[in-house]
Each structure stands twice: as C-alpha cells, then as structure tokens.
C-alpha cells in the first residue's frame, strides 16, 4: 500500500510516499529555517504563506522523482496536529482536496505519533512495545508504546519543552535559531563542568519534566557575571546547560525503562538529533541492558515520511478521516 503523506505543522513543507509503513519511496523536505533564522523563530504568518507557495512544487517533485502518478497512490495522509494552526491548515486543505479529487481514503495523523514512527522506518524490525522519549521544540514526553495504536503517557513537561529550553538559552547566548544544533556544537567545545546548573528531577517517582527552572538558572548566572564583570565563555555555559538537560532526560528515561521493564528505548523528535543526547543515552541505557534506537538526522526533523509510516498503521486499525478533518493545534496523543 502506497501512502502519499503531507507534513506542514511548523517550519518544514514536506511530502513523502511511503509503502507499507516502512519503505520510503521518496521524502521531499523544503525547510523554511533560513527564512525564520533572522527572526529567531518560526513566524507563523510567514510559515503559512510559504507552505502555500512551496507545497505544489514539493508535491510535483515528489511525484516526478519517484516516477509515480496519482494512480499509484492508495491513500492520502496529513499531519492535522499538534502544530501552528495556519501552517497545519495548508497541509490539511491540500490533503482533503487530493483525497476528494482522487477519491482516495484520507488519514489524519498525529504529529507526535509520526515522530515515533520515524523509528519504524529506520529499523524495519522494530515493533511495539517499547518506551519512547519524544523531545522537540514543542514537546517533551515519555510514552509507553503498547501497540501501534496504543499509548500510555508516563511523563510530560510541566512548563517548557526541552527543545524550547535550548532555543531560549541559545537566544540569550547569542546563538542562531534553531538553538539546539548550535548549543550541541558549542557544547563539544566547552567545559560541561564549568557551571553546576540544577538538575530538576521533581518527585523521584515522577517521570514529568520541568525545564523552566534551569532556564532561569542560566539567565541568573549570565546576569550575575555581567553585573560583576566576570568574563564567561559561552561555550562553557552551553556545555554546562546541555549537560544538565541531558542528565535529566537520560536519567528519567532509564529509570522509566527499568520501572516498566521495557528493554527498548526509542528517541524521537527534533532534539533526538542532539549528538550529546544520543551518546549519553546509548552509554547509560546500554550499561543497563537496554537497546537504544534513534533515526537518521533527516527523520528526526519534521518530515512527511514519518507521517506516511504512521498513517499506514492508522489505516490498518481502521482509523481514517472524513473530509471534515480539521487542523487541531492542540491535538493530544491517546
């Protein structure tokens, strides 16, 4: 079964064709990051306008390069949330138009579930159950994936998402948007022991996260240095900040894996591209007999292939949408 999938929830306009949930025939991604860089973040109106402009070209090149036609496509899938409402609407409208005009089934996909499914593409033999840490600019979740269509949320952020903390600290340190890659890079050059930032674990038995205190601590430290004319290396702050985030993410994930008895951990979402996170998780989880999975960089960022993969399992479970499908910026998992 070949599914044509559309993703336009934030920065990226992407269209992919995925066969049977695992085989990516094509995955075209047009990123607006360069456009948004100068504003220090995604500008919603610019994002939706650009999705409108880029989407037809991305669609055309996806079909041309894969040498497929609409006749070869069995269903249309689209991210319908969570994300920016204007950006989501572009993809949802396009998908509905295609599904209606071609008379093919329409499958509305949850963006977070899509991030998890990126691992299905990378690891063809990977099957639930497993534990997944979803970390991105907008989300931080620890989710037990019981089956393709069954999730139990075990932890979530109580304030800022992990990726948001990266973006905001990067902003303060003068690094470009998106902040994650810049901090990850700088962290390799800095001393992670330079500043001891707090590790917020909340209750020992809680798998929830809180990153706003850490963000404040970084700001306090910088203010303190400026007031007292103490020189600081921003690489050291980046490294110390990243170490604090990773300690919490890795520690909680491993603890959660132990408690649930799950021997497989998948990392998903934009922050799963963080080299420090990958290395730390592999090492610590590995020592505890847990296998760690994360997708290639191209599948970590927003892309339509992951949506096409998830859509296949939605379809198998009979979860299709009608033409009333709407963008749901605050769509929840479960």
């Amino acid at each position, binding site marked *: 079964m070949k599914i044509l999938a559309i993703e336009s929830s934030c920065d990226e306009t992407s269209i992919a064709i995925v066969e049977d949930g695992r085989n990516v025939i094509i995955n075209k991604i047009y990123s607006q990051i360069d456009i948004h860089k100068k504003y220090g973040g995604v500008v919603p*109106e610019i994002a939706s306008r650009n999705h409108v402009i880029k989407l037809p070209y991305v669609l055309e090149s996806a079909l041309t390069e894969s040498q497929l036609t609409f006749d070869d496509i069995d269903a249309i899938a689209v991210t319908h949330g969570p994300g920016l*409402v204007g950006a989501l609407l572009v993809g949802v409208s396009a998908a509905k138009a295609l599904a209606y005009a071609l008379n093919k089934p329409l499958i509305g996909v949850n963006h977070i579930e899509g991030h998890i499914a990126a691992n299905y593409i990378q690891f063809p033999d990977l099957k639930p159950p497993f534990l997944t840490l979803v970390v991105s600019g*907008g989300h931080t979740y620890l989710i037990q994936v019981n089956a393709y269509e069954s999730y139990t949320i075990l932890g979530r952020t109580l*304030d*800022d998402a992990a990726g*948001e903390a990266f973006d905001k600290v990067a902003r303060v340190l003068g690094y470009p948007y998106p902040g994650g890659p810049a901090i990850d890079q700088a962290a390799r050059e800095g001393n992670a022991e330079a500043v001891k930032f707090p590790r917020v674990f909340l209750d020992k038995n809680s798998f929830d996260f809180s990153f*706003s205190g850490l*963000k404040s601590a970084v700001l*306090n430290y910088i203010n303190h240095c400026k007031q007292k004319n103490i020189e600081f290396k921003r690489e050291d702050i980046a490294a110390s900040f990243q170490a604090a985030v990773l300690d919490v993410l890795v520690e909680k994930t491993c603890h959660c894996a132990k408690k649930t008895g799950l021997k497989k951990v998948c990392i998903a979402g934009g922050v799963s591209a963080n080299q420090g996170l990958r290395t730390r998780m592999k090492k610590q989880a590995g020592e505890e007999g847990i296998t760690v999975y994360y997708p290639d960089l191209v599948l970590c960022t927003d892309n339509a292939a992951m949506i096409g993969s998830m859509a296949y399992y939605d379809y198998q479970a009979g979860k299709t949408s009608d033409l009333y499908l709407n963008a749901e910026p605050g769509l929840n998992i479960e």
Partner: protein
Amino acid sequence: MKWQYKTTTPEATRHLGEKLGHIFKPLSGIVYLTGDLGAGKTAITQGIVKGMGITAQVTSPTFALVNEYGDKSIKVVHMDLYRLLDFDELEEIGFDDFLRDGSIILVEWPDLLIENRYEPLAALSLSRVEGEDDSRIINLKTEDASLIERVKQLG
C-alpha cells in the same frame, strides 16, 4: 492605578497567581504579562488558571503561540506574541474570536497590542531582584477601580 508585590520563590509567584485568578474569575479581558525570559510568566499563569477554578496542565505557549484552558463556561487563553511580526497575524491566530468569547486572555510579549492601543483589563509585570535569584517584583496596573481595590486586599 498601581499595586506592587514581592515574592521570594517561584511557588510564591504561583500562589499569588492563584489569588489573582480568584479575582479575575468573574471578569473578562486582556491581561498583559511582561518580564524577561525566566521571570515567571508561565509560573504566574499556572496560578491564575488554577485560581480561576480550571484544572489543567499549564505549559509554555511559546511553541504553539496560543494555549486554551477550561471550557465554554470559563476559559483562559494564554498567548505568546514574541514571534508575531504584524497586526494581521493576530487575526490569523484567532485573536478576535478570543476577545468575543469573553475569556481572560493572558498575553506574553504584548508589544503588538500595546502599539495598537488595546485597553487591557490589567497589566502584570514581573522583574528580577538584583542579588536575589528567586525573588520577583510583581507590578499590577489597571484602570479598573474595583479590581485594584480587591487586589490591594491581598496585602
């Protein structure tokens, strides 16, 4: 009219928010929330939402731009306008709809609204205190005489 309060911990900021939420509950309108990164805008919002009797996990609105809590009978809208560039974009995120709903609308980085001379119900600003990392000075400004009366009773 102005009122000032000092908190010394994030919990105290949240607790003050809860008391303000009680006061805001029967009202509607825009509340500006200003303060630097990490000043406690999300923390005070968590308190306000709770104080208005809404049970919800309040998180940062930065990524989604708008978070809504509650239901038709009582609703709080929490926005972050940092990334909006011009007035048209406000419309795109449904700002007018929220205004018509009669909700309490908490707005972080409200510069666009200030430039366009919106009249807020109240303006809350949070600022850091030099040498006291966890302390915040919270200022509330309003033109509503009965609101300031009730707020002053908080101490």
